[in-house]
């Protein structure tokens, strides 16, 4: 081992990076950005869920419980009318609502505390803080009552149910994410190869139109993406038994749109990378924030307000939401929310196709 020779390699490496501002930025700026985002997401989140309460109780118990639930740190209570509850669960403004039925006090006297708890249910675990808050509130009631009481909440789920686990929830999103991510990486790298091996120059010096290149690429990768989508779907549904309540073709359709977006995003972004190394750098810049902010891990509704605006402009947010609506809630094309999701993903797709075509000629100069 020669110290001089080793030093030569080390110093060459550092000199090289000194001129590669992009890599330096990636090494030193990206971690701070990603960690700040994560910190803000988790600490800054309005993690207290909105829970509706409808008190129909003719006795005093319902009112007592309601007022102590209002003090709860675990949930944020909103008074509602019982018949509106399901609609509010559907539009996502509530994660659950509690109804104290007319005979609630009467039953409580007999020793049974039986509130109705209606849970949206597409995200597993959301009922836990509601039930915890209820149990804490019971302490106030138990103090007022002399006899022992049994807590027997009557929990119903709008979607899914108690059997829904984390895999069902994340699986629905990851089916799309995996496809989007892998197709993006494969496209950006092959498009860069096209440039670095000089064949893009040859294509440009042929009668080929830019649109023909982009559409040709799109169709080629679409074939690969479709095979991958089938594989991922079959594996998820048949082997992993991820919960699916919707139409498989609809899931497939959303995946196709995501694949098309990924291909064209790859073509477009390859414009901003000179080497495969730089292309890989797009992963932390483009993919990681989308994973954090598109509701895959943290529901968009629980994000800090400022980040919600950001989430609302990310196409992946809508794709993930659409996939979850179909798989967990059984949404079909008559649902306005699904129409919006699909419309936005399709719109994004068109946008990146146009951007890819428009920038194609500039990148060989």
């Amino acid at each position: 081992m020669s110290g001089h020779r080793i030093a030569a390699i080390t110093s060459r490496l550092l000199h090289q990076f000194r001129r590669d501002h992009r890599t330096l930025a990636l090494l030193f700026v990206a971690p701070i950005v990603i960690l700040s985002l994560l910190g803000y997401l988790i600490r800054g989140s309005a993690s207290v869920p909105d829970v509706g309460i409808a008190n129909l109780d003719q006795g005093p118990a319902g009112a007592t419980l309601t007022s102590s639930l209002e003090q709860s740190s675990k949930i944020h209570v909103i008074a509602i009318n019982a018949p509106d509850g399901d609609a509010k669960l559907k539009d996502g403004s509530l994660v659950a609502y509690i109804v104290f039925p007319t005979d609630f006090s009467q039953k409580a006297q007999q020793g049974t505390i039986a509130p109705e708890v209606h849970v949206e249910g597409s995200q597993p675990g959301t009922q836990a803080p509601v039930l915890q808050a209820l149990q804490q509130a019971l302490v106030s009631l138990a103090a007022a009552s002399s006899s022992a009481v049994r807590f027997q909440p009557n929990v119903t789920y709008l979607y899914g149910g108690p059997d829904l686990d984390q895999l069902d929830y994340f699986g629905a999103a990851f089916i799309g994410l995996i496809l989007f991510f892998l197709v993006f990486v494969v496209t950006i790298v092959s498009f860069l190869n096209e440039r670095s091996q000089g064949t893009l120059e040859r294509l440009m010096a042929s009668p080929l139109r830019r649109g023909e290149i982009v559409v040709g690429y799109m169709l080629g990768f679409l074939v690969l993406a479709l095979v991958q989508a089938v594989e991922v779907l079959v594996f998820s549904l048949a082997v992993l038994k991820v919960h699916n309540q919707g139409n498989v073709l609809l899931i497939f359709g959303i995946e196709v749109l995501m694949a098309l977006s990924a291909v064209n995003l790859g073509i477009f972004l390859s414009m901003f990378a000179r080497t495969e190394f730089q292309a890989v750098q797009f992963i932390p810049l483009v993919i990681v924030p989308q994973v954090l902010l598109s509701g895959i891990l943290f529901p968009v509704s629980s994000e800090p307000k400022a980040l919600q605006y950001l989430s609302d402009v990310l196409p992946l947010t809508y794709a993930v939401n659409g996939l979850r609506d179909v798989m967990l809630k059984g949404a079909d094309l008559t649902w306005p929310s699904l129409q919006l999701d699909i419309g936005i993903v399709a719109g994004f797709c068109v946008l990146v196709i146009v951007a890819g075509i428009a920038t194609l000629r500039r990148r060989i100069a």
Partner: protein
Amino acid sequence: MSEAYAVDVENVVKSFGSQKALDGLTLRVKPGEIYGLLGPNGSGKTTLIRAIVGLIAPDSGTVTVLGRRIPDLDILAQVGYMTQQAALYPDLSVEENLRFFAAISGSDGNVTEVLKTVELDQRRGSVVSELSGGMRQRCSLACALVHRPKLLLLDEPTVGVDPQLRVQFWEHFREMAAAGTTILVSSHVMDEAERCQRLGLIRLGKLLTEGTPAEVKATAGTNNLEEAFLKLSGRESE
């Protein structure tokens, strides 16, 4: 061919930042001739060829190819373009590369004939990544010929080609020219320049001298092209 010139470059200026790659360059290539483009590295040869195929839009001036103002994508079906670097798909076979480049020019392609020309007919099924550098260069030339272009633009086509094959390349170029194909070729190799019907010497984005090899030598007052080249391109810098 009805046009007076196969390639007509009129007063073309192209700058990259503060660097003037082409500085009011005018150059005309007659149909069926082999025109050699000479000049030191960085003189603008490659930029000129790229402007002719429309890869670069000139800042001012015009380029006309086979009677059509560039940019014109359709006329490119009749143009063959070979870059310095062998531009091929490494994961495709020789034949698959040729068929692809024929197809994008809208031609069925004379694959077999072209493969014979570049002596790759034995390797037509070989994947390009397994070929030697010289074979790749030949395959790249074949891709520029496969759609039977009327105009062939060759940017240093014989780099990495052994002398024996280089002679064959040039024989083939002559045959093509005799059959009416116009060839514009850039080169560093002086014995190649001798084989051209006309030469243009480019320096700093301008055409310094033009003429047959004999005329160029006469202008420089030397009897060998190498000296003429050095003398003529040196004169400007003094």
